[in-house]
């Protein structure tokens, strides 16, 4: 597809961060957040339209992966929460 607009990219960023919240596992949740923030910042300075489009479609497929996996992980959520989730 054509070069994604700024709004679409921001919207993809937001969707990825929201999908990270659905994971019951603390580690995967944190990893998803960290990885999306890092990769979006790393690619912030891209100017070539084809590489921007490639990174965008990459991000979209990762979003699909995250959404599917959050459903699967929720089916088998551990009963004992991670210590990091327990507020002091």
């Amino acid at each position, binding site marked *: 597809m054509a070069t994604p607009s*700024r*709004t679409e990219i*921001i*919207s993809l*960023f*937001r969707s990825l*961060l*929201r999908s990270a*919240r659905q994971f019951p596992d603390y580690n995967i949740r944190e990893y998803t957040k960290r990885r999306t*923030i890092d990769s*979006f*910042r790393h690619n*912030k300075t891209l100017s070539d339209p084809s590489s921007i489009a490639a990174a965008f479609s990459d991000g979209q497929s990762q979003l699909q992966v995250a959404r599917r996996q959050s459903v699967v992980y929720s089916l088998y959520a551990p009963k004992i929460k991670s210590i990091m989730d327990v507020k002091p």
Partner: protein
Amino acid sequence: MASITGSSSLMASLSCNKLTQTLTRAYNFNVVSVAVSGKSFPSLKLSSAPSRFRVSCAATPETVDKVCSIVRKQLALPEDSAVTGESKFASLGADSLDTVEIVMGLEEEFGISVEEESAQTIATVQDAADLIEKLISKN
């Protein structure tokens, strides 16, 4: 000249010849003062509502403070930096990715869910605090 505070106002008229009636409204719209030329009356309160000085926007100071602390933490600003209700995110050094992260942090902190369109329009700390108040009161 007239100077208006939140709770009282003193009027002194300027012209002496004709009857000048000046109506001024305070921030909270419940104090109306009338002055007649040549004399200055004390302010007449037309309603009996308590005339506290109210900030004209909807957000409480605690909400604004919490938003400021989240913004500071996200942008790694030092503790004594000037983050007030009027600070724009862009002027504090935040780009659009930072703004999205700040809005996410606010969603988690206050347990609300911000829609896409509302999130696009947030530009200052005060916008964020008002939106938060609106969403909290709607729940």
